[in-house]
């Protein structure tokens, strides 16, 4: 159990910059997820923490002391790989006990036949077997101990990989997309299991994924990475509600956040499709901005009401059972938005129905031209102004 501090890590491969000054502190016992599109450098960062790759500059410290000069095995971290990386010619038991064998037994004691004759070797082996069995039992794979990885299903292999990581009680767990080789159903189950494992072990977890749902559901904090940089590190709900950049806003959340082009008026108000929205920003006047609204934030109506901001046509309806997604397009614009509504509400709409959208002003996100979040104030729009443009 330890905190891990990552300071100013940079790395490039053959002239391509993979990581650029990444700094991050992971608290003891925290579940931190590194999330980002493929190729954003998150796996490389994890491999640098593990010691499998070397950073060009920067420092990794585990439990307060630098490990930059230490080999992977000396860092005392466990890693779970996307492919599980189980040793194919060893049984499940041998796979799970190998980390203990390598740590507790000397080179001579490990020798196949001769080693058994050395004093102490037998006792250590029995002790290791007991621990391997305990871990296997805690993950419900004790009945598989004598099998080989090739004879196991994907879910079973994934548990063996977890067991191998758990058995030696490392300083921290590193997980590199451990669920992406599972089918959708298994993945949901495995997500809960890994969360449960984290609660039980109270250990530090650094979890890499490209799947934002995994990031949102499991983490204490989420670190969003893109183009080798950390864009935002915050608790999941905060990342969702208060994204610092447009890229983060777009990456987190399904369906994707709706982004509409807007401009800042002389008085700081935002204008979208010739309509003044009830927010004021402190951005440059007359500058183009992106106005972003989460799909569930829209309030839909069949008739134009007090706060209607957009009027469009339903172009596509997606039924998801618990909710319905309405795709709305606007006359004279290529932009379209998705509204997430209750199925009972959705039944009022057909393809081609007119639809009016309103928004809680506090939940409108505005991003400046360079993608940074602009601070917004809600403002009540005077009715005469609204009429002018209505």
């Amino acid at each position, binding site marked *: 159990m330890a905190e891990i501090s990552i300071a100013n890590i940079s790395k490039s491969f053959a002239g391509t910059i993979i990581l650029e000054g990444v700094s991050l502190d992971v608290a003891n016992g925290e579940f931190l997820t590194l999330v980002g599109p493929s190729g954003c450098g998150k796996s490389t960062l994890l491999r640098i923490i*593990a010691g499998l790759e070397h950073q060009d500059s920067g420092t990794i410290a585990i439990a307060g002391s630098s490990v930059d000069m230490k080999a992977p*095995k000396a860092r005392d*971290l466990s890693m779970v*790989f*996307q492919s599980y*990386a189980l*040793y*194919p010619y060893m049984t499940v038991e041998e796979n799970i006990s190998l*980390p203990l064998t390598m740590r507790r037994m000397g080179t001579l004691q490990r020798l196949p036949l001769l080693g058994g004759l050395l004093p102490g070797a037998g006792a250590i082996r029995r002790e290791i077997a007991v621990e391997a069995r305990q871990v296997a039992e805690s993950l419900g794979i004790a009945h598989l101990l004598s099998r080989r990885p090739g004879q196991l299903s994907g879910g079973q292999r994934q548990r063996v990989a977890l067991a191998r990581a758990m058995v030696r009680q490392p300083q921290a767990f590193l997980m590199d997309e451990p669920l992406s080789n599972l089918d959708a159903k298994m993945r949901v189950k495995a997500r809960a299991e890994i969360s449960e494992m984290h609660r039980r072990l109270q250990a530090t977890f650094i979890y890499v994924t490209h799947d934002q749902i995994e990031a949102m559901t499991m983490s204490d904090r989420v670190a969003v990475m893109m183009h080798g940089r950390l864009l935002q590190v915050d608790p999941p709900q905060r990342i969702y509600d208060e994204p610092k950049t447009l890229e983060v806003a777009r990456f987190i959340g399904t369906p994707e956040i709706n982004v509409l082009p807007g401009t800042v008026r002389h008085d700081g108000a935002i204008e979208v499709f010739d309509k003044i929205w009830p927010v004021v920003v402190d951005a440059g006047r007359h500058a183009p901005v992106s106005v972003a609204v989460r799909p569930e934030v829209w309030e839909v109506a069949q008739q134009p009401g007090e706060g209607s901001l957009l009027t469009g046509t339903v172009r596509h309806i997606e039924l998801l059972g618990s909710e319905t997604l309405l795709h709305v397009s606007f006359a004279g614009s290529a932009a379209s938005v998705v509204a997430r509504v209750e199925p009972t509400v959705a039944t009022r709409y057909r393809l081609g129905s007119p639809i009016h959208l309103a928004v809680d002003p506090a939940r409108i996100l505005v991003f400046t031209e360079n993608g940074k979040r602009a601070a917004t104030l809600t403002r009540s729009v005077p009715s005469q102004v609204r009429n002018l443009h209505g």
Partner: protein
Amino acid sequence: MRTSIAAALFRHLILATGAVLMVLPFVLMVSISLKTEGEIYHPQFSLLPTSPDGIENYVAAFAMQPLWRYLLNGVLVCVGIFLAQALFALPCAYALAKLRWPGRNLTMAFVLLGLLIPPQVPAVPVYIMLWKFGLLDSYAALILPSAISVFGIFLMRQFFRTVPDDLISAARMDGLSEVAIVWRIMLPTAIPGLIAFGILSVVGHWNDFFWPLIAIQTPELATPALGVMFFVTAEAGTNFGRLMAAATVVNAPLVIAFLIAQRWFIDGLTMSSMK
């Protein structure tokens, strides 16, 4: 259907001709080894011996020359060479397939270049080197020049390249040293390849005549192939019955070994056994 039967017949005829041509020398070898001198020179050729007296050839072959000794030498030299080749080839192949270091591609180019050089080319310098070290006419003279096989390095490298990198990363996290990775993780994945290479290596060195002929003077150190030739130069002229008996004895272990290992041999060279 008619044409396809004709095609099949044609195919089989060609294959059968090839098979007969390949097997015929061996059949003749066994046949002659079982005949008495009179039968061998008899104007009427028959494949099978007419009397059981031909078995004498085998008794005489073992009595005339220390055949067992030659076979033992063959085993010692071939096993020694193979172990040395594996000892060098596996770590080299691991370094070439899985480690990143400056000069790796150049080294690989040298390995490929080495594949092109026949063993006869460096024979004279190697001979002089062994002479300088005073190692001529010894087991070392037979084993050392073949201890490093570029073909072995190349074949093992091809195998190791198919091993996923994650497996090696996992092994490093689990505390295995690079040496332990070679022997505990990489070697088991390459067993079929190693067996295939072992067969090629053992057959090659068991049958090698050229190098033992120039490196060995003492008859007691002769390898099987060299030992058989002692029957040719025997004072009383060549006795074909005994010569062929010796040749049969020398060939038998290889044939038996191949029959036992042929499944792995084919797996290993086609690499189909991975996964």
